[in-house]
């Protein structure tokens, strides 16, 4: 047992390779999250727009992106759309995941905004708040609170989706784990270790949200 663990984790600097895999996974997750959230806000704004054509466009985008497997999209982007360009694999992966996350974020935000009480906005408007003020001061904080838990699980999902980037020549955590399993021929043990690392990363995300919740409570 200890010999197998040594082979998997230590031998020949294996832990450094695992660390590099973790770095790649976290980097892709984080960057896609940032770009995806920004794009998601824009898509949500389009989706809720009163201009019919914009709202239909956003709806088609959301349906397409949420309805297609992210691996297929990634392969299509890397081996198709960006094939003739100098874009590195990780940039293409970030673009792909950002596009996918944006669709999810847009729907999360829309659902959260719809869940707030429209009567409050009307009340704010009668009190002399501008449209923007009513949204920013009344709807937005409530929507944010509603969206937070769903957004948190969307991030954990994103972390797990990135495990397919091995298909486009990126050596992320999953690929490192697969390589180690092939090298040591001990797939069960190696995959359990890989899962534990993913679990730790997911709990770090949960932890960050828990801290923001705690700080939020103290502030209020």
């Amino acid at each position, binding site marked *: 047992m200890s010999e197998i663990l040594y082979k998997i984790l230590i031998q020949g600097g294996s832990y450094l390779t695992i660390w590099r895999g973790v770095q790649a996974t976290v980097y892709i997750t984080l960057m896609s999250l940032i770009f995806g959230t920004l794009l998601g806000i824009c898509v949500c704004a389009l989706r809720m727009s009163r201009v019919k054509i914009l709202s239909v466009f956003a709806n088609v985008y959301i349906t397409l992106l949420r309805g297609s497997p992210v691996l297929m999209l990634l*392969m299509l982007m890397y081996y198709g759309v960006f094939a003739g360009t100098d874009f590195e694999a990780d940039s293409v992966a970030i673009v792909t995941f950002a596009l996918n996350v944006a669709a999810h974020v847009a729907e999360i935000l829309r659902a959260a905004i719809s869940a707030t009480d429209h009567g409050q906005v009307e009340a704010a408007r009668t009190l002399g708040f501008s449209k923007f003020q009513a949204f920013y001061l009344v709807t937005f904080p409530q929507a944010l609170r509603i969206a937070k838990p769903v957004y948190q699980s969307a991030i954990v999902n994103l972390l797990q989706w990135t495990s397919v980037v091995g298909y486009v020549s990126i050596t992320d955590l999953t690929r490192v784990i697969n390589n180690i399993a092939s090298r040591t021929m001990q797939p069960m043990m190696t995959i359990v270790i890989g899962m534990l690392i993913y679990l730790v990363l997911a709990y770090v995300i949960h932890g960050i949200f828990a801290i923001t919740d705690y700080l939020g409570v103290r502030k209020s």
Partner: protein
Amino acid sequence: MKERKRLGKYFALLLVIAIIAILPASCFAMSKKDGSIRSGVLTYLGTTESEFQAALDDLRKAVAPLIPTDEERDSWEHEDRLEGFISSLVQTRREVSFFDSLLAMQMALRSRKLDEIVLPECTGLYLINSNSNYDVLFSLNLMPSSISFGFRRNDTALKKEFDGAIAAMKKDGTLSRLESQYISEAGSEPVPVKFQDFKGAQVIKVAVTGDLPPIDFIASDGTPAGYNTAILSEIGKRLKKNVRLISVDAGGRSAALASKRADVVFWYRNSGDLKLPAKANKVNSKAMRNVMKDNLDGVILSSPYYEWDTDLIIGRSN
């Protein structure tokens, strides 16, 4: 309202029918049928699982006359008799599943979704030396196989250069030296090789998967190593070109080649005819012809740089 309710009922009924129609395929995949043995095979690019299964069933019919009756038993020459796997195949039908990666196949064997897996001899030996849970069930000298480099169909110039380098390496003994160093006499894990840098020279991108040790292998520091890289380093030196290795998941190889993300991939193939005992019937079915020929769309292959006659059938130790 009534109309809508009725439509709703029809829709629900359709859904139930669709679910029932889908169920058998998904629920009973890889389930054992009529006592057959479930075998795992690494995906043969260019053929389908059902075609491979049909070819194997044809083979089974062809070798059936090789079971001697009691009267024949004494009079038959040794080479007419069935040994090992063929004998087992006559007795029990094999149900084949394709796997893109050795890893998934090994896990299916471990979790009893498969009863045996078929691997090239060197990979099979690497597996049983690294993991005591597995053992060799049969040695199979039925189908000569080889590994070649695969190029895009229009990349004939590169193929020609590789062919030239492989022929030269065969001639001066480099190929057999590397083969014994990295495969037959390799004690443990292969060490990464150094690639020479030729300033300003053409860069050839080669996709490696790390999934077929000790041929295609990724070392503990994350660098591709093994026989393939040793061959590539030698070819790079001879052609005075820079070789850049990119690590791709096995399922992404064809796409990498077609989209020019990679210029060269490794191609595992049959080479040569079935080696059946003299008394066996000829297998000339369409399925077998399709499995034996390389059905390659958009890919041309170099001459083989590693050939083997023996595959190992590996099962759980117990």
